[in-house]
């Protein structure tokens, strides 16, 4: 019983590694798994090394990192709100990032192109601002309740979507198409730069999240019992929400708005390893990474020359599962 969780996570890690190797081999230029491994270690043909190491590897790694970040964010949010339907996208974080990016796109070209970082920063700031808005509106009588947080989130998300549409109307077709593409979330063509930002960020934030595991469990008992057990509920909630937003905003800033990973991954994880966050958090992260990796790979291999962005594919993969979840969830 006590080993089941960690053991399962080890298995998941191996599955993820295997999936990665396979994904690196799939595509227009097919590479056998054995050759993939060789390419990673510099022992294959130049062409294989180019395709695997330069083209596909950063993309696959980004997919995994983004998926893990989003999944963790969702798990934290669901833990804090005690609601299995919570997802950072639904409560306005992604919409905030979208507004940030669109505001940038509406500015003159010179400002936009000033730095390669302009877009991720704009997205991050937008997401953070949205989170503050939501928290601010939800704060009443000294704290936020889960219900208020979620409802306000839906409201803010709706408002920000309206703002996005307003901005969209001022754009010419080209820019608008670009904005739409960004909104739908993609890990393609970004090179190593995002990974250099995201990996250390995750390396810092993930252990922080894992340390909160037991506190998250106790928060799950509700405000009264948690307070009775010595948890400073409001403070903890704020901290965990900040962590959740940080993870989510980072992922969205770098890869656009990939929704539903934060919603689905925790549920998948829970059905495998149970509700205790010590196991749930790593499990959700691994599953999230796997989900986005599979979605992205499917998106680039299944449709011939057209590529569908990961965001759309995650929805396609996740939708049936999500509906099934909704049907049987009790929260």
């Amino acid at each position: 019983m006590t080993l089941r969780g960690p053991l399962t996570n080890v298995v998941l890690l191996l599955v993820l590694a295997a999936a990665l190797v396979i994904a690196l081999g799939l595509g227009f230029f097919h590479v056998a798994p054995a050759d993939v491994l060789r390419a990673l270690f510099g022992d294959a043909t130049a062409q294989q090394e180019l395709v695997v190491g330069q083209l596909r590897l950063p993309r696959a790694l980004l997919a995994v990192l983004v998926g893990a970040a989003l999944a963790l964010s969702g798990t934290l949010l669901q833990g804090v709100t005690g609601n299995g339907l919570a997802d950072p996208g639904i409560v306005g974080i992604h919409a905030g990032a979208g507004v940030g990016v669109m505001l940038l796109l509406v500015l003159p070209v010179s400002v936009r192109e000033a730095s390669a970082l302009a877009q991720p920063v704009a997205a991050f700031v937008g997401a953070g601002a949205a989170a503050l808005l939501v928290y601010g509106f939800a704060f009443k009588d000294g704290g936020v309740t889960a219900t208020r947080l979620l409802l306000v989130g839906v409201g803010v998300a709706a408002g920000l979507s309206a703002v996005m549409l307003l901005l969209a109307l001022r754009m010419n077709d080209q820019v608008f198409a670009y904005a739409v593409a960004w909104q739908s979330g993609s890990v393609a063509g970004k090179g190593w730069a995002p990974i250099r930002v995201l990996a250390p960020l995750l390396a810092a934030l993930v252990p922080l999240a894992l340390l909160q595991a037991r506190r998250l469990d106790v928060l799950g008992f509700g405000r009264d019992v948690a307070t009775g057990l010595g948890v400073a509920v409001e403070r903890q909630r704020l901290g965990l929400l900040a962590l959740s937003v940080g993870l989510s905003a980072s992922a969205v800033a770098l890869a656009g708005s990939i929704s539903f990973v934060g919603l689905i991954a925790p549920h998948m994880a829970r059905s495998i390893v149970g509700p205790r966050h010590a196991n749930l958090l790593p499990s959700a992260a691994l599953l999230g990474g796997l989900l986005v990796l599979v979605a992205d790979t499917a998106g680039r291999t299944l449709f011939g020359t057209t590529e569908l962005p990961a965001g759309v594919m995650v929805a396609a993969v996740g939708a049936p599962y999500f509906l099934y979840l909704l049907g049987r969830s009790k929260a």
Partner: protein
Amino acid sequence: MPRRRGRVWAIVLALLLLAACVWSVTVGAVRTPPATVWEAVFGTDNGSTAHEVVRSLRLPRAVVGAMVGAALAMAGALMQGLTRNPLASPSLMGLNAGASLALVVLMAVYPGLGHTPLIVAGFVGASVGALLVFGVGALSPAGLTPVRLALAGAAVSGLLGAFTTGLVLLYGIAQGLLFYSVGGVQNASWRQALLFAPWWLAGTVLATVIAPRLTVLALGDDVAVGLGQRLRATRAIGTLAVLALAGGAVAVAGNVAFVGLVAPHLARYFVGVDYRKVVPIAGLLGALLVVVADGVGRLIRPPFETPVGLLTAVIGVPFLLYYARRVGHSA
């Protein structure tokens, strides 16, 4: 005293609506003085542009706007009564997302179709979206609490939206979709009005029939059955009315958000909880809202038109936030 209140409001609102329609017809890029309007409507057609504008553009626009507003508001009132959930409304329950998706699917597969099939597609799509949210919520033991509804609606909308985005990217239909998703009656015509009319009438008749039963339903299923009401019949008729009204409205005017949410609440505030009064009053309020918003949208930055959907969001989002702050009191 209560009975008189309803009638008084009905008369007041009807007069306001009439005034608003007249005002709406005079407003726009080309200011048309009331005298010209009068001539255009009641006098002989002298073939001038002014008359043309009044007859073929502005008048149908006001009429369709009123129909759409009334339909959405009545649908919202019915939904709130049927689900006993104050957050139920067409835009929050996936109708808009469903309709968009259906339209995009149709546009992708058969580009350049006429109006009629598109309206039908919108109707079908809206039904699918709503049924998804309804059905999923009904399956769960916890039922459709306000939070579950908001989240389920947001999630289903997001999912369907992701599919829509995918198709838009694949088939390059961006611009047309934009105006649709923003929601408005810019392209209103007599033809649209005539197409919508049967659905509108059918829905309104059903809504009027159902209204008294909804008041009883608000007391709870058990009490309602004890008072001799047939729950399934009520729900079936109600759902049909909602689909006819909301589906038709969304198909004609796109995503005019929040009318269906706000109007019933306002109506309840004015005339109390008897649905026999709430439904028609909400209808009048909704019509008024859309006609005024449409007119204002033309006044803001002429000749540019701000879509109705954005203006209703200006009212709707603060309302939702205000409501969210009042409501969340659980842990």
